[in-house]
């Protein structure tokens, strides 16, 4: 989204006192380790969720509705008597999958467009960058809501909506990095040796630019996930009865005074997942493997 476009996040050079040449081999930043461990935990829970879940996440039992935590139901039950722990274990898929696919597409398109327009210049560059200037200011939630209104909710709609706006900051960053790399002696050497433009882009520019770009992707992951969750929260994302963290919070809101845990637990799940990827992104950008 435009809001983070002006951020110096991933592109900012590390201010480490260690020279860049050595920092590549230096110890990774602690947030990278902590974030990776946390994300591993979340990923494990999401992958093994369906087998780990003690109950069927959609099985209702109205007799046991809104029960506090007990030995049978570790985190209690919701307003339809469904087991909260089981729903938590399977409830991350929608937001995480959409965020991951969106960011992968955004990185691929954004990097290619940015690098090619930096390398080609001229009209291609002009058209691409003006498109970035404009699309980057579109509020992505609003674009998503309109596409949902026209195409109906679902994975495809949300991935399309978030990618339309999402590739732009990556294109801007990739173009900036590519221009910097283009001035390096090894690119000049490759040109003199007669390497094709495609070879230079694929073998020299992209591998050297991918560090800051992937840091940016991780830094944006949490935001994307929270945006998808927001749409699910207001009923424009995943549809019931599928378990989803944000949708669970929306369903639990009327009972918040009686059973605050129903809102706290899914919120904590989203928060921890978002925090883990943000930490990884921060760690990546501070470990500093800039060319």
């Amino acid at each position, binding site marked *: 989204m435009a809001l983070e476009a002006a951020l110096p996040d991933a592109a*900012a050079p590390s201010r480490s006192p260690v020279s860049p040449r050595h920092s590549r081999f230096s110890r990774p930043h602690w947030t990278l380790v902590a974030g990776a461990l946390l994300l591993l935990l979340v990923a494990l829970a999401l992958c093994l969720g369906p087998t780990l879940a003690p109950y069927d996440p959609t099985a209702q039992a109205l007799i046991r509705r809104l029960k506090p935590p007990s030995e049978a139901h570790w985190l209690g039950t919701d307003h339809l008597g469904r087991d909260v722990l089981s729903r938590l274990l399977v409830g991350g898929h929608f937001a995480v999958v959409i965020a991951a696919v969106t960011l992968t597409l955004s990185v691929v398109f954004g990097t290619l467009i940015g690098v090619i327009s930096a390398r080609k210049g001229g009209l291609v560059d*002009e058209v691409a960058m003006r498109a970035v*200037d404009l699309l980057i*200011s579109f509020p992505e939630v609003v674009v998503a*809501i309109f596409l949902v209104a026209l195409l109906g909710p679902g994975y495809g709609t949300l991935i399309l909506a978030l990618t339309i706006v999402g590739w732009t900051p990556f294109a801007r960053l990739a173009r900036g990095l590519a221009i910097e790399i283009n001035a390096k002696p090894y690119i000049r050497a490759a040109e003199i040796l007669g390497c094709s433009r495609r070879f230079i882009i694929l073998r020299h520019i992209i591998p050297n630019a991918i560090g800051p770009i992937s840091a940016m992707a991780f830094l944006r992951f949490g935001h994307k996930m929270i945006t998808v969750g927001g749409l699910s929260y207001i009923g424009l994302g995943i549809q019931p009865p599928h378990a989803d963290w944000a949708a669970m919070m929306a369903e639990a809101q009327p009972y918040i005074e009686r059973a605050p845990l129903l809102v706290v637990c899914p919120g904590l799940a989203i928060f921890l997942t978002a925090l883990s990827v943000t930490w990884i992104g921060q760690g990546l950008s501070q470990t500093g493997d800039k060319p």
Partner: protein
Amino acid sequence: MWHFALRRGTVLLLTLFVVSVVAFLIPYIGEGDPALLVLRARIADPNVDPATLEAMRRQLGLDRPLAIQYLAWLGDALRGDFGLSFIRRAPVGDMLGGALLVSITLALSALLLALLVSAPLGTLAAMRPGGRADTAATLLTQTLIAIPEYWMAPMGILIFALWLGWLPSAGWDGPASLVLPALVLALRPLAYFTRIIRAAMIDVLDAPYITAARSRGLGMTQTVMRHGLRNGAMPVITLFALWLAGLLGGSVVVEVIFAIPGMGRLIYEAVINKDIPVLQAGFVAIVALAVVINTLVDLAYLAINPALRHSHGA
């Protein structure tokens, strides 16, 4: 400078044209027949008499070529006339104006609050990068970025409205009802503002004129106040404007949770009720505002910072 302004202006007009065409075509994309949509909205009976449908089509001018229809619609839209809402029967232009005012009030309160906290926080962090204050600020911003607003909002309602009873839980009357939503909306911009202020201040505090001021015996606080803040302000103003554009409509989740009659909720309800005229007007208004603000920010950047004028050739 003028060359750049002209170019951005052209692209701006081109975008507004594309946006208006898309908005105009919205009723054709869904069910395909605008006359049927209007008729369904007016009478509840799902079985529509073909003769009535034909009469309606002629009455609304929907039998004319698409280009003529577009020009007529655009002419009305430029005068602020987007027709009547299918649901509320009120002029869409008026509904939009009211909602926009609410959203701007909410967005400005949240962003000013965020700025008020992030300016000292970011500056403090920048004074000694890697120091204790910096680490604390970094941890805080990472945490705030990862908190969903639809988690903070219900928890805020639970604590301050239901348990303590200090604030209203929802609605839009009086300054008290503004506090919780503004607080919730302020968290994420607060994090981003702090980060950009920190980065800007680190750059500024490295500058020779700061060393000069310090070596002439000016205290650190005064140096930061007099020279630092003023020179580090530009990226912050940019980010502020971009957030303002993003929150008009982008605050939909918070507006829905707190039942605030702003732009986000207006569009949300239009989507739920398939209120086509409101959807069209909302789409045009939000995107146009975002694009215009973005263009103005870019131009202001060039106008204020002469050093960029020549480097912006590409």
